[in-house]
C-alpha cells in the first residue's frame, strides 16, 4: 500500500526500543532506528550481531519482546508478515524463502493470490512481471523452475515478489553475498531506480564498498545493539569497520611477492559430462606451483563448482570424466576407488567446499566432531579399533584457539555457530593440515570483515609455507587481492589467464563474459555484441 496516508516528511520507518531474545540469547537490545523516506539505508555488523533478527521483526516474521514500530509516522502493530505486507513492507531474506520446485510465477503469487483459483492470479502476475521486467530490468523467465535458476535470478524473484506486492519499503538482507560483481551492479542500478521513485530501501551487507557506493545513511550493529547511525558521506570504510568489530581492521591483504616452486597440480584436458549429458568441463588445462595462489574467476555456473568437485574427488553421481590430473608429478585417478574425498586428502589435497553448510560441515555434529570430518581415518585420531575422541577434542580445542572461533565451545553444534565461525571451522580443519594443495571455494561468502581478514591471512600464510592454493570465488575483489595468477572460467573452459598485478577489472570482466581479446578460440560461442576486444595484455597460458 503506497504511503498515501503518511504524514508528510515523517520517516518511512521508525523503530523505538526494539528488543528480542531467543531464549537466553539477547539478539536485539533496545534498538532505535530512523529511516527517512526515499533513502537507501545500510546496516552493517558482525555475524550474529542481530541484523537479520531486527529486519525479521520489522517484517513481522518474529515478534519483538518490546518496542514500537512506526511506519510513515504512525505506530502500527506488525503481528505477522501479512500485516507487514499490508503496511507496504517487502523483504528479501538472507536465505531465500522460495519454493524450489515451483515456477517463478507460482512463487510470485504465493500468498498474494487474487482468489480461490489460480488461473486469474497467474495471468495477472504474468502481466505484472512483464511490466516490472521492462521497468527495472528484472528479467526472469516466469515459467522457469526456481531450482533451475542461478542464485542471482532467484534473488530477482525475491525482489519481484516484493514489488508485486507493491512494497514501498524494501528490505534486503545480504543480497550481494551470492551475486557476481556484474549482478551486484545490476542490482544496485535497480535499487537506485527504486529509490528515485520514492521507495525506501534497507540494505544489510558485509561489504563496506557497497555501503559506500550506494547508501545514503548507515547504521552499525554490534552484539545486539545499535552502536552508530551516520550519514554515509560523513564516514569511511575504516571507521565503519572499526565501529563494527570494535578494533582496527586491515582492509587490504598484505602479501609478499610469490616465490613459485615446482608444479604441484597439473591438469590436462580435463573433461566432465554430467549425468544429464551436459558437458560441464570442456578440456581444462591448469598448473599451480608450490607457493602460488591461482585464482579462478568467473560468473557462477561456468564449471568452477564442477572443477573443485572433480579435483576434490566427489563429482556428482553418474558423471563421466576424461583427462589427466597430476599431484606432485604423480597421476591421480579420475574415478573409481582411490578417487574419493578420502583418497584425495591422503594424497595431500585440502578442500574448503563452496557450500559450507551442505558439504563442508555436518550441521548437527558438534564443532569437535566437525574438526575430524573427512580426516576421521587419520592415524592420530585412532585408538586401536576405536576413534580417539579425546585426541580429536584436543585437536579441536587447539584449532578453536588458533582461529579464534567463537564461542570457544567445542561441544556446540555447528549449526549454532554464526556463518563466519562455521567457515572458520572448515578453514581451520583444511588449512591446519598443511595440504600440498588447498582447494578453496567462496572462502568468505557471507562472512563479516573481521573473519574475512583472518581467513585471507591464513590462505596467504599457507602459500608462503610453499603450498599451492586453488582459489575459486565470485568476488572479483577477493580474487584480485589474493591471487598470484588469475584464470577466468567461462562455459567449462579456461578463457584466459593473467598475472594478478597485470590484470584489470575490465579485462577480467571481458573474459568472464566469454571474450578473450588475445586469443579467441574459433569454436567458442561468443555473442558478437559482447566482444568489445580492447585489452590484449597479460600472459595467457
Amino acid at each position, binding site marked *: 500500500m503506497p504511503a498515501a496516508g503518511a504524514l508528510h516528511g515523517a520517516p518511512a520507518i521508525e523503530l523505538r526500543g526494539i528488543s528480542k531474545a*531467543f*531464549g537466553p*540469547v539477547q539478539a536485539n537490545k533496545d534498538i532505535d532506528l530512523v529511516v527517512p523516506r526515499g533513502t537507501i539505508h545500510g546496516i552493517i555488523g558482525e555475524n550474529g550481531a542481530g541484523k537479520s533478527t531486527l529486519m525479521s521483526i520489522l517484517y513481522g516474521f518474529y515478534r519483538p519482546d518490546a518496542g514500537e514500530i512506526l511506519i510513515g509516522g504512525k505506530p502500527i502493530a506488525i503481528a505477522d508478515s501479512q500485516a507487514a505486507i499490508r503496511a507496504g513492507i517487502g523483504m528479501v531474506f538472507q536465505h531465500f524463502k522460495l519454493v524450489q520446485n515451483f515456477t517463478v510465477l507460482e512463487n510470485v503469487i504465493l500468498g498474494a493470490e487474487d482468489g480461490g483459483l489460480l488461473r486469474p492470479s497467474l495471468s495477472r502476475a504474468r502481466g505484472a512481471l512483464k511490466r516490472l521486467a521492462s521497468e527495472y530490468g528484472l528479467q526472469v523467465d516466469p515459467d522457469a523452475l526456481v531450482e533451475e535458476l542461478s542464485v542471482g535470478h532467484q534473488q530477482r524473484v525475491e525482489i519481484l515478489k516484493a514489488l508485486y506486492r507493491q512494497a514501498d519499503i524494501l528490505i534486503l538482507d545480504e543480497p550481494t553475498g551470492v551475486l557476481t560483481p556484474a549482478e551486484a551492479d545490476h542490482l544496485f542500478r535497480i535499487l537506485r531506480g527504486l529509490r528515485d521513485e520514492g521507495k525506501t530501501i534497507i540494505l544489510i551487507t558485509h561489504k563496506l564498498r557497497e555501503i559506500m557506493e550506494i547508501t545514503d545513511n548507515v547504521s552499525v550493529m554490534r552484539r545486539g545493539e545499535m552502536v552508530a547511525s551516520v550519514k554515509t558521506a560523513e564516514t569511511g570504510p575504516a571507521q565503519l569497520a572499526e565501529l563494527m568489530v570494535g578494533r582496527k581492521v586491515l582492509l587490504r591483504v598484505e602479501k609478499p611477492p610469490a616465490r613459485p616452486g615446482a608444479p604441484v597440480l597439473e591438469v590436462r584436458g580435463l573433461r566432465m559430462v554430467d549425468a544429464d549429458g551436459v558437458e560441464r568441463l570442456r578440456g581444462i588445462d591448469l598448473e599451480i606451483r608450490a607457493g602460488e595462489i591461482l585464482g579462478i574467476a568467473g560468473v557462477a555456473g561456468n564449471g568452477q563448482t564442477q572443477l573443485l568437485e572433480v579435483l576434490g*574427488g566427489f563429482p556428482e553421481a553418474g558423471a563421466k570424466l576424461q583427462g589427466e590430473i597430476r599431484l606432485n608429478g604423480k597421476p591421480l585417478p579420475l574415478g573409481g576407488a582411490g578417487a574419493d574425498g578420502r583418497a584425495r586428502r591422503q594424497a595431500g589435497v585440502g578442500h574448503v567446499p563452496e557450500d559450507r*553448510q551442505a558439504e*563442508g560441515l555436518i550441521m548437527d555434529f558438534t564443532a569437535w566432531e566437525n574438526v575430524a570430518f573427512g580426516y*576421521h581415518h587419520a592415524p592420530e585420531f585412532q585408538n586401536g579399533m576405536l576413534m580417539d575422541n579425546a585426541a580429536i577434542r584436543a585437536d579441536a580445542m587447539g584449532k578453536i584457539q588458533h582461529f579464534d572461533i567463537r564461542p570457544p565451545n567445542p561441544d556446540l*553444534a555447528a549449526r549454532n555457530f554464526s556463518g563466519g565461525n562455521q567457515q572458520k571451522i572448515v578453514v581451520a580443519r583444511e588449512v591446519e593440515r598443511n595440504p600440498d594443495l588447498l582447494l578453496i571455494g567462496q572462502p568468505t561468502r557471507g562472512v563479516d570483515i573481521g573473519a574475512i581478514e583472518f581467513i585471507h591471512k591464513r590462505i596467504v600464510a599457507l602459500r608462503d609455507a610453499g603450498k599451492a592454493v586453488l582459489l575459486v570465488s565470485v568476488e572479483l575483489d577477493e580474487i584480485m587481492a589474493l591471487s598470484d595468477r588469475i584464470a577466468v572460467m567461462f562455459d567449462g573452459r579456461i578463457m584466459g589467464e593473467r598475472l594478478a598485478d597485470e590484470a584489470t577489472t575490465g579485462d577480467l570482466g571481458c573474459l568472464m563474459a566469454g571474450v578473450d581479446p588475445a586469443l579467441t578460440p574459433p569454436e567458442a560461442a561468443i555473442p558478437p555484441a559482447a566482444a568489445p576486444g580492447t585489452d590484449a595484455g597479460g600472459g595467457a597460458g
Partner: protein
Amino acid sequence: MPAAVRDEPSHASGGSIWKTEKTEKGGLMERMPKWADVILTPLISLALAFGISALVILAIGESPVEALKVMVQGALGSSYGWGFTLYYTTNFVFTGLAVMVAYHAGLFNIGGEGQAALGGLGVALVVLALPWPHWALALPAAAMGAALFGALWALVPAWLQARRGSHIVITTIMFNFIAAALLNYVLVNLLRPVGSMDPASARFPAAVHLPKLSDMALGLGIEWGRNTPANVTFFVAVAACVLVWLLIWHTRLGYEIRAFGKSEPAALYAGISPVRITVLAMLISGALAGLMAINNVMGEAERLMLNAVEGAGFIGIAVALMGRNHPLGVLLAALLFGFLYQGGGELALWTSIPRELIVVIQALVILFTGALDNMVRMPLERLFTALRRKGA
C-alpha cells in the same frame, strides 16, 4: 534439513523421506537445565499418559488404582515379575537398537518384524543342524545364524535403496509380508515334524537350552524368578547396547553412519560412500533385529513357531524413537515397554480389564513421551527462563 530460518538456498535436502534428523537441542546457552530436559520432562509426560489411562480405565468401569497396583506388582513387584519384564525388555532392546542404527544412517527400517522372524529361522537351522554338546557353544553359533539371517533379510532392501533408489520404507514393509509367507512355508512344509498340528519346528535338544536368569541366580544360591523366561540373552542385549554405543560414537564406521545420516552431500565430500554406508548400516540393523531370535526362539520357546516375533519389530520403532536413538535410551525405553507388556499382561490375566487396554496405555505412553513431549517441555522452558531472569 533445518526448518525455516537456517536453510541455505543451496542446501540439498537429505534425499530420503524418513531422513528426519533430529535437530539437536543446545544453543549457546540452554533454556533449561539438562536434568529438567532429560528427567523431568519424560517423567511428567509419563504421568500425563498414566493420568489419561486412568480416565480410560474409569470410563470402562474399573478401578485405576487397582489396575496400577496389579501392573506394578505384576511387572516389578517380585522377582517373578521382573523375570518376565526383563524377557520382554530383551526383545525390545534388540529391535530398538536395530531401528536406531538404521535411523542414524537416515534410514527408517520398518522391517524389524521380518528380520527378527528370519533371525528365528537362522537360529532354528543352526540349532537343529548339528548335535551341539553344550549351550555355550550353540549360543554363539546360533547368534551368528540369527544375525546372518536377519542381516540378509535387510540386505535386499538396503541394496535396492542404495543402487536402485527403491524406498527403504516400502521395501522393508513388503519384506515383512514376504518373511511371514516364507516362514509359514518353511515351518509348515519343511521344519514341522510330521503329524504335528503346530506349524512349528521340532523342539530344540535339551543341550542347547539357554540358562534362564533364574537358573543363574540359583547357581549363586539365590531364589529368583523361578519359571520365568528371562535368560542369558538379556546380558547379550546389554552387551549389544554397549557395542552399538561404541559403534555409533566411537568408531569410524559409526562416525560415517551418522555423518551420512545427517547430510548425504557432506558425506560425499568427505569420501564416504553412500552405497557402502546404506548397506552396512542396514546389515547391522538387520543383524540386531535378527539377534532377538536367540531370546524368544532359543531362550524362551525352544523351538521356532509362527509369529514368534509378536510385533516386537514394530515396538522397536517406538523404543528407538523414545530412547532418542541412544542405546541407553533404548535400554530404558525397552524396560518401560517391557514393564507395560508384562504389567499389562498381568492386568489382562488377573483382572477383568480387557487386554486391549494395555495397547491403549502403550499408545498413550508413546504419544505423550514421544510426540507430545513439547507440550510439557515448552511450559517448563518458559518457567526456567523466567526463573533465570529473576535470578539474574
